[in-house]
């Protein structure tokens, strides 16, 4: 095997560990369950899964540290340094952070002075193995590691480890030979009893971790697609974990099929890229080149070293010149590249549950809560955002604008639905959709770093909140309806407390004007949301036509604060609404609360320092800053411009969030105005929101039913028309055969028989001459002779 960079090695091992875990768990788990006196009570599978993912975390962490030292990830890049860190006046606050702006060479020169690995190019990439080669075309399993990969790896493995540990407690009731599923009613009215599937859950989780890490590690878009599908199927398996519940299996199907709709666009994008560029790779290999000129990747082909897209106008419309290719005149029509971007983005829309494919995510809450926390909030759904960010260099302005609008619509729509949802997990699900919308919006606006920043912070606080809700659900014996809860903070103090941390983080609350050792007193969500709102504000100033892209996130920041605090007040504050439920309620065991506390720690501190802090700095090392395209109607904000609006945006966002919080406190904490009265006053709107803007009904009528109708048509076409034609031929054949038989029997046979009959009749009549009298015969002979003679003489006269 060719040389592979040590960071890549670490990540590859971290990636494969969960796969090994999966294989062992699924086989060993199955067989040990079938053994006589089966070992249902064993937690081995869980320990193995935790070990694998925890090991993965350690490996990723060491890779990250190695990356930090190799590439200087915590140093500000000069090209980004205009985004002057607001708090950089106090550099000694963080031991590893070096805000040594002056030490880094200026301008693009930093990128051109390549001195081997980790010199200018801050990524490593290479091949793991080849899937197929066709002439010059090659499809392979590659790796691509840059700071984003490293951070995503660390984040995913860290959160996954916490959630795995939490799941040991959450799934505990599956460790029995006779598990009772209270949500399934059999025909005779009893509840379903089945063997527990403890090991199966952890094997699925391991498979998911493997797929998710593969997706992040992928070095080409095809491999992304491969793992894209794999995380999809893991999501399917996990949502449908309670296979006996019809709602669960339907939700799983819905999730997968809706995702496939997005993947359909993804495939179209792949086809365009593949046909136009002849490669799927992101960037050229750094490993295993052996000095040869490396095959350029997509990013290098679309943009030159300065992030510029070479657009040319021709008679047939605009074209984009392909850079760095053997064929200097190679180009791709502009619209095709836009279509490719939109196609890839369609995949992101499906995976990240963006409008108009958002409907699957709330239903996906049918899965066990750790799944919702890991798959459907922190990692898999964020993969869409990750891909949009990863593929940022290929997106043209039109695509970015689409992304921004999709994000804006999504974040608003989802937030409005979250206001009226009463299922605790569904509120969080809509909140996830809304937050993903924020990230998409940020990426669409050119706020690449802000979007990913929010991705990471959101992953921590949202998984925290999901786990808290899981803790509540376990505590309340699988009750998920908030109207039946209330006052739980007394029974579940740790859960309530950590949940409050999550809520504050997502709302983006902070103490304005006060700083502690130079850092703002704010949780992670404040920093990242602040960055997004600032980007949006700058964008709206630069492109006044698209002011909506600023208003939507701003207003939604208030709505977010409202519904999140509504959730918290509903669940934890006030008096118990269902005394029986309350009485049986209990705090979760240590195995569940410790992960909550760890995640709460990260929810508070992971974004420390905001845009000057280590996290954002490290992320921004992977950023490609797109150069402005001539004739484009859109101006993307630069870091410098954004910095100018930062203060203003921060205050606005905080204000709106505070209003939302206050409103929630008044309505659900104090009870004035009474939410019930408001609900009645806006009954129509309320119903519309409860029915989720009627998307499900719309899709049902627009797609699902027509598909079934068409399917029935085709099936009956087959049976009626095609088989009909066939049967007609067969029938005609039989009829023809009958005719043939008739012809044969009556006509041909008739003639033959008639001749035979005639001959017989003649013979019969001649038999009269046969008298049997000898003397008569003699006379006949004599007469015959005489006659012959006479005839001879008559006919042949002498010559």
């Amino acid at each position, binding site marked *: 095997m060719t040389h592979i960079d040590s960071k890549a090695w670490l990540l590859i091992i971290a990636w494969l560990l969960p796969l090994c875990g999966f294989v062992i768990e699924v086989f060993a788990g199955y067989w040990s369950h079938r053994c006589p006196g089966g070992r249902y009570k064993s937690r081995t599978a869980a320990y193995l899964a935790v070990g694998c993912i925890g090991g993965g975390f350690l490996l990723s962490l060491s890779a990250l540290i190695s990356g930090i030292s190799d590439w200087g990830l915590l140093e500000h890049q000069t090209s980004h340094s205009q985004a002057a860190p607001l708090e950089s006046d106090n550099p000694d606050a963080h031991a590893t952070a070096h805000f040594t702006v002056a030490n880094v060479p200026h301008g693009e020169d930093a990128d051109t002075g390549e001195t081997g690995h980790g010199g200018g190019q801050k990524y490593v990439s290479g091949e793991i193995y080849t899937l197929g080669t066709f002439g010059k075309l090659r499809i392979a399993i590659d790796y691509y590691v840059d700071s984003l990969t490293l951070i995503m790896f660390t984040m995913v493995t860290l959160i996954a480890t916490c959630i795995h540990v939490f799941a040991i407690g959450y799934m505990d009731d599956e460790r029995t030979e006779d598990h009772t599923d209270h949500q399934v009613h059999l025909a005779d009215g009893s509840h379903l009893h089945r063997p527990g599937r403890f090991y199966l859950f952890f094997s699925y989780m391991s498979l998911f971790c493997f797929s998710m890490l593969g997706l992040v590690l992928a070095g080409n878009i095809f491999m992304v697609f491969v793992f894209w599908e794999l995380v999809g199927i893991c999501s399917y398996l996990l949502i449908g974990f309670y296979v006996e519940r019809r709602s669960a299996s339907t939700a799983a199907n819905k999730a997968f099929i809706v995702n496939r709709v997005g993947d359909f666009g993804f495939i179209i994008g792949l086809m365009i890229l593949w046909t136009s560029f002849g490669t799927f790779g992101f960037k050229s290999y750094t490993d295993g080149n052996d000095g040869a000129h490396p095959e350029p990747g997509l990013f290098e082909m679309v943009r030159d070293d300065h992030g510029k897209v070479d657009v040319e106008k021709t008679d047939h419309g605009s074209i984009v010149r392909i850079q760095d290719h053997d064929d200097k005149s190679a180009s791709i029509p502009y619209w095709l590249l836009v279509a490719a971007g939109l196609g890839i983005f369609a995949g992101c829309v499906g995976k990240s549950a963006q409008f108009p494919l958002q409907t699957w995510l709330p239903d996906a809450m049918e899965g066990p809560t750790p799944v919702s926390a890991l798959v459907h909030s922190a990692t898999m759904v964020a993969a869409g955002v990750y891909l949009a960010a990863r593929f940022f260099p290929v997106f043209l302005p039109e695509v970015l604008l689409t992304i921004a609008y999709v994000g804006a619509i999504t974040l608003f729509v989802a937030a409005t639905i979250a206001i009226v949802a009463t299922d605790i997990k569904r509120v969080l699900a809509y909140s996830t959709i809304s937050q993903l919308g924020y990230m998409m919006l940020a990426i669409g606006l050119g706020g690449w770093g802000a979007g990913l920043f929010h991705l990471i912070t959101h992953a921590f606080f949202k998984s925290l909140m999901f786990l808290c809700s899981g803790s509540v659900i376990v505590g309340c014996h699988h009750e998920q309806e908030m109207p039946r809860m209330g006052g739980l903070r007394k029974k579940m103090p740790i859960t309530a407390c950590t949940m409050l941390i999550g809520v504050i983080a997502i709302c983006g609350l902070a103490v304005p004007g006060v700083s502690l050792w130079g850092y703002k007193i704010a949780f992670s969500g404040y920093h990242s949301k602040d960055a997004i709102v600032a980007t949006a504000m700058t964008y709206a100033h630069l492109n006044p036509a698209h002011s909506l892209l600023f208003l939507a996130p701003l207003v939604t920041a208030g709505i977010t604060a409202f519904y999140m605090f509504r959730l918290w007040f509903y669940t934890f504050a006030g008096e118990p609404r269902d005394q029986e439920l309350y009485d049986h309620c209990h705090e979760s065991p240590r195995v569940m609360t410790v992960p909550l506390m760890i995640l709460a720690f990260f929810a508070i501190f992971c974004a420390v320092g905001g845009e000057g802090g280590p996290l954002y700095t490290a992320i921004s090392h992977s950023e490609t800053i797109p150069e402005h395209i001539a004739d484009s109607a859109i101006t993307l904000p630069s870091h410098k411009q954004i910095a100018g609006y930062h203060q203003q945006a921060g205050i606005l966002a905080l204000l709106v969030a505070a209003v939302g919080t206050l409103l929630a406190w008044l309505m659900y904490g104090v009870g004035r105005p009474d939410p019930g009265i408001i609900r009645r006053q806006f009954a129509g709107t309320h119903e519309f929101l409860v029915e989720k803007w009627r998307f499900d009904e719309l899709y049902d009528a627009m797609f699902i039913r027509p598909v079934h109708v068409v399917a029935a048509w085709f099936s009956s076409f087959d049976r009626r028309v095609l088989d009909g034609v066939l049967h007609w031929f067969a029938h005609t054949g039989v009829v023809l055969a009958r005719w043939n038989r008739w012809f044969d029997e009556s006509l041909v046979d008739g003639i033959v028989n008639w001749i035979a009959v005639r001959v017989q009749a003649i013979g019969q009549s001649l038999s009269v001459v046969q*008298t*049997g009298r*000898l*003397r008569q015969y*003699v006379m006949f002979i*004599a007469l015959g002779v005489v006659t012959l003679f006479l005839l001879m003489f008559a006919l042949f006269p002498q010559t």
Partner: protein
Amino acid sequence: METPLAYYLFVGAVLFVSGIVCMATKRNGIAVLMGVELVLNGANVNFVAFAHYTPLGLDGQIVSLFVIVLAAAEAAVALAIALNFYNNHQTIDVDRGDKLRG
């Protein structure tokens, strides 16, 4: 001085016609046989007479010898039939033996 051919032919014709008439008129089987012999011999006379004009000059005689031999054989068979016929029917009247009529 040669005897003209016509004389021979005349004798042959007389023999032939006699034979035919004998066959046609006699009801006695033996007599019919005798008629047959006459017819054959009438033919023999003709063969011998014509043989004079053949290159070898003996062809007719040879054919006649064959005919005589055949006639003898035929007579033997016919007499055997007549004997059997008599044994079955107590007569040799050919008009009584019309079992072969169609």
